[in-house]
């Protein structure tokens, strides 16, 4: 934690806000703000992870049966898509740092494309669940059997619980992705307008952080939800 900031002598940038001494202080401040916000997001998702873990322990067999019914291939595809999108986002930040305006827009567009792909796959998965009557509260009916006991039916309420938490968690994640797409759109427009340069690219950097965070949440969601007891 540095002692109070020592001003950097340089001409004022048009994006320098009045309460900051120089661009460096402004950038550091914005960065710290975004990191803190991501910490709150960890706590936010944490509550749902907690609920999930407790019920998974309590109703393991039913949860395992339910988990088999969501398609691991779509999940894996989405994981790959998001990882690539994080890569393109990191590249976008790098371009912003180096002042490469056109390439910045290209990478942002790709990131947005991959994000949209993720959401498209998710929509397909949700639709599949709708067709199979696996949506809680909507004529829910799970036709499976307990793992390892092909004759014994699952407990409908417990499998419904899995799907409740599945939709709550992936839904909340998808909402964050949608917000992320909105932020991407803003960045693309702002980049085209030439708002960013080597001394000012804070929004790109911080929205990048947000994007990576949403990616990391998915990295946890995928194994927890899709990979229970899969052979």
């Amino acid at each position, binding site marked *: 934690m540095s002692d109070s900031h020592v001003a950097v002598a340089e001409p004022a940038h048009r994006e320098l806000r009045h*309460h900051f001494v120089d661009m460096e202080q402004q950038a550091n401040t914005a960065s*710290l703000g975004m990191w803190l916000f991501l910490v*709150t997001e960890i706590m936010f998702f944490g509550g749902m992870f907690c609920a999930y873990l407790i019920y998974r322990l309590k109703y393991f067999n039913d949860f395992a049966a339910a988990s088999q019914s969501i398609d691991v291939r779509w999940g894996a595809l989405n994981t790959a898509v998001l990882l690539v999108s994080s890569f393109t986002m990191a590249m976008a930040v790098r371009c912003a740092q180096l002042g490469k305006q056109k390439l910045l827009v290209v990478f942002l567009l790709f990131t947005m494309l991959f994000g949209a792909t993720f959401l498209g796959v998710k929509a397909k998965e949700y639709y599949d669940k709708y067709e199979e009557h696996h949506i809680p509260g909507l004529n829910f009916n799970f036709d499976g059997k307990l793992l390892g006991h092909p004759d014994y039916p699952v407990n409908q309420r417990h499998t419904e619980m899995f799907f409740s938490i599945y939709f709550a968690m992936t839904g909340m994640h998808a909402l964050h992705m949608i917000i992320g797409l909105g932020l991407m759109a803003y960045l693309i427009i702002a980049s085209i307008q030439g708002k960013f340069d080597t001394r000012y690219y804070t929004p790109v950097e911080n929205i990048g952080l947000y994007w990576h965070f949403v990616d990391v949440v998915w990295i946890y969601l995928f194994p927890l939800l899709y990979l229970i007891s899969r052979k």
Partner: protein
Amino acid sequence: MATAVVPQQRTNYLNAEHGVKSWLLTTDHKRIAILYMFVVTFFFFIGGIYALLIRLELLTPAGDLVQADTYNRLFSGHGIVMVFFFLIPVVPAILGNFLVPIMIGAKDLAFPRINLLSWYLYVIAGGLMLHVILTGGVDTGWTFYTPYSTAFASPKVVEAGMAAFINGFSSIFTGLNFIVTVHRMRAPGMTWSRLPLFIWANYATSLIMVLGTPVIAITLVLLVLERVFRLGIFDPKLGGDPLLFQHLFWFYSHPAVYIMILPSMGVISELIACFSRKRIFGFQFVALSSVAIAVLGFLVWAHHMFVAGMSVYAALIFSFLTFFIGVPSAIKVFNWTATMYKGSVTYETPMLYAFGFIGLFTIGGLTGLFLATLGVDIHVTDTYFVVAHFHYVMVGGVVMAYLGGLHFWWPKITGRMYPEGMGKLAALIGFIGFNLTFFPQFILGYVGMPRRYYQYPPEFQMLNVLSTAGATILGVGYLFPMVYMLWSLRYGEIAPDNPWNAAGLEWKTTSPPPTFNFHEDPIVDFEAYNYDELKDIPDER
């Protein structure tokens, strides 16, 4: 706000711009603090009206003033409004917003626009809550326990939950703003060890806001989802666990009470230092005790659940940990007391509120020990003993500290002095009214009167009557300052820059301050509470 109420010659943040738009679109932390003052005070009124109705009903053993359902909405409304819309924001969003940048020598908070957003989120949440109140209210209690709230209570639960959810983000953004501000915006020379204790307190509070509030947010989301889609996460009939709700709820709601008390403790430190004209005794310990309370506060939530059906071992652990929080709190009380030793004490209104705080917080805190003790808690939990305990710390603590701080910084905020005689009188009335209201409730609790009861066995009546009498007096003690503070805006003595001859950067600028806080960028080359360096004679009034 169109007319200047403060006839200062100099331009200050109040008269720099005029018009409604200049207030509603302001990013000046000081104006945002005033905006908060309006809405928070408004909700304090609402919560107070609820309290009045509750106490009126409880004058007689029978349920004869209102119907049972109505009473249940009254105490629920009182709790939700007071906890979420008054106690959580009152000191941080009003005094904190105003003072944090000035005390560290900055021109504004780190994120002024997010600060304005915080206010709007509060207003939207408040509007939603007001709608809930006006269309019938909720009857779940502010604790929203399941399965009552998800499967039995009125549908207003969803709206009330959403109101609390949105309000939570107001809180989160304020806390985020404070933390980043303290890290990145300190003036040259303002090291961590030179930060006033009010800053330390708000910093620790902000840590709790940022880490704890998201958990209540997700809990409310799950509650609403369960209510609307019958998901079954908390409802045993659908395979869920009602205790899971309680754990998630209290994981935030316990640290929340430290969000309420820590900034208040910061205020008390400032008051005692100024009116003893001394650096707070054990400065380091008081500063670090705030952080200790913030950390420990996250480890004790299940002491609200000793009879809920947890395992014995969990209960033992939580009881043990709960005692530890008493230590940093006690450290503060001892250090405040020791500060007066060889000090130079005067008894202006803010100091009277500080004395009141020490008295009432001590009692409130000590009764916390009673509740931490398992054998006793089993008997008194869910009774009026708990009600008395938390009102001692919340009202006797937080409200006293807020009023003390409001009087102390009133000249800085408004450029006017409040009438000192009235101030002292109001403090006294409030103190007497408070004790009469809540001390009998300790007795009521131990003899077994449960909380949230609108009818009770006749032998409990006398204690209830005493309590209601006290509540009336307490109400006067609160209305009185509202009247004379408003009066002072027009007729109060014009305040000098430093009427108390207090230490601290906020007293080095004008009363009221200019929009960018200082006429010259401050450089800090002195320790906090450098009363030994300040001249003895207060400024001319």
